[in-house]
């Protein structure tokens, strides 16, 4: 088939596939699922930090936090637009999110218990997200790759802000230091799990899709490689902050040239992924109720636009 040939050639040449190019149905489906999940993660990801907007302890932090949550909304919008180039629309994707048919990053099922969690999310969660996302800036699908370039630029800004929140806390009162350490204790392991299950061994079995995604240029690195890269990057940053990462097995391995680290609790990972995490129910319920409460507003906007269009038509006639 000619079109499949064109697609294969573009992939082989590491060129970008664009919306009008022919592409295998599986490729389209995989991308829709992945981009939608990514978009949903931005939208659901507004909630854990959104929880602190009204309580941010200073006006400067409040302003930064509002801007950050706004950025996440913006990322969601870029990504839904990227998905729409593949022939689905945002309303449909949101329905799939609300029905639980599409997922979002499981990290957002953990609660933000203190102000320091806004720091830990920026530092660890955005840090891990960037590590996952930078390779996607070279993803084979053009609109996704371009959206990721924009997203990554803002994310690295967020990561620095998170680091700075923790930096300030670690140089603050005893209670503030304890708050920062506690946040790191709680977010470290879930952040490591963000890279997904191991690529090999028993725990790898729930994974899937990896090989095909690699071949298609959607995925560029193995989960474990990215995880290792993340650990290697974060350990020195933790030292700089004065935060002790909650892993007794964490140590430099001269031979490997990497940090060794302990075993992730994959049972917990799968449990949270299945829906029994601390905030799964709350996150979806919050999204769904905002969406439902806003239905009459969206309907009004649609009705008004239709009226305006017909008025224009009439006056043109």
């Amino acid at each position, binding site marked *: 088939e000619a079109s499949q040939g064109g697609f294969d050639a573009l992939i082989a040449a590491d060129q970008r596939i664009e919306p009008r190019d022919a592409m295998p149905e599986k490729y389209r489906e995989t991308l829709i699922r992945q981009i939608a999940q990514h978009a949903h993660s931005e939208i659901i990801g*507004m909630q854990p930090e959104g929880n602190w*907007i*009204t*309580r*941010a302890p200073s006006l400067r932090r409040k302003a930064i936090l*509002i801007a950050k949550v706004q950025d996440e909304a913006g990322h969601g919008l870029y990504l839904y637009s990227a998905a729409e180039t593949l022939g689905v629309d945002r309303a449909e994707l949101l329905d799939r999110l609300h029905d639980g048919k599409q997922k979002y990053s499981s990290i957002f099922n953990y609660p933000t218990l203190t102000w320091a969690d806004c720091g830990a999310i920026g530092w660890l969660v955005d840090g891990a997200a960037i590590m996952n996302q930078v390779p996607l800036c070279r993803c084979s699908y053009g609109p996704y790759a371009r959206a990721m370039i924009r997203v990554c630029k803002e994310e690295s800004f967020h990561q620095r802000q998170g680091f700075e929140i923790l930096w300030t806390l670690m140089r603050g009162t005893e209670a503030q230091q304890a708050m920062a350490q506690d946040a790191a204790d709680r977010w470290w392991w879930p952040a490591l799990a963000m890279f997904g299950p191991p690529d090999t061994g028993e725990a790898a079995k729930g994974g899937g899709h990896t090989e095909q995604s690699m071949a298609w240029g959607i995925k560029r690195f193995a989960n474990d490689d990215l995880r290792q890269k993340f650990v290697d990057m974060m350990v020195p940053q933790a030292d700089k902050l004065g935060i002790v990462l909650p892993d007794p097995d964490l140590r430099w391995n001269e031979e490997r040239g990497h940090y060794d680290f302990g075993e992730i609790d994959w049972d917990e990972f799968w449990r949270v992924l299945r829906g029994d995490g601390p905030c799964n129910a709350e996150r979806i319920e919050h999204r769904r109720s905002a969406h439902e409460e806003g239905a009459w507003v969206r309907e009004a906007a649609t009705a008004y636009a239709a009226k305006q269009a017909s008025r224009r038509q009439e006056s043109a006639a």
Partner: protein
Amino acid sequence: ERPEAAYLLGLADDAMVYAQRLSEWMTNAPQIEEDMALGNIALDLLGQARALYPYIGSIDGTGRGEDDYAMLRDERDWRNVHLVEQERGDFADEMARLLWFSAYQVELHTALTGSSDDVVVGVAGKALKEVRYHLDHASLWVVRLGDGTAESHRRMKAALERVQPHLAELFDDDDASVTAAELGVGVLPSSLHDGVVARVRRVVQEATLTLPDASPWRSRGGRAGIHSRPMGYLLAEMQHIARSHPGATW
């Protein structure tokens, strides 16, 4: 200690408290674009408050910084009108409030660009660009909702009625504003009334609605620190963490 400080504190507190209320919409708006838009307006208002507080601190003899005003002040010392402290209602309630408040702010900051105080002129000049956008945004929605579906029309109508009792207070000439107007720093709130009403009326008419009659009661006292029930709870939420860590830096 300069006497116009009390007047400016009213302006700053209006912006601060409304920023707090608007920020509650984030993750709760009817569509994602609106999470962003309301967040943006909240940020602008927060910026206005942050521009004013340190200046007020420099002229009211206390030397307070922005967080002293926002995080460590008791309810009785806040000078905002009741309009901005009311609990978040539905989206029509918010658009009714935003329409009135931003129309008021457009008139206010237009007038303040002629202030005798350079700092006020600077703040007003920057704010004016922002609040014109806020007014456009609110107008767009009020028209869409008023001239949208039967349900949205009904809700928008009810929202305009519910906001009504809180409007008169915006135009009260309290002592602080009289003093500030005499000094040429501020303007008399009453002088803004007709311009604001004219702006709002145009929008409401386009929305196929009419302005409601005067309500049987009206709010009073915000500029004297007499607030309505929601204010204490708003402050409890806003200040709790800052109050829980006296002397901490964030």
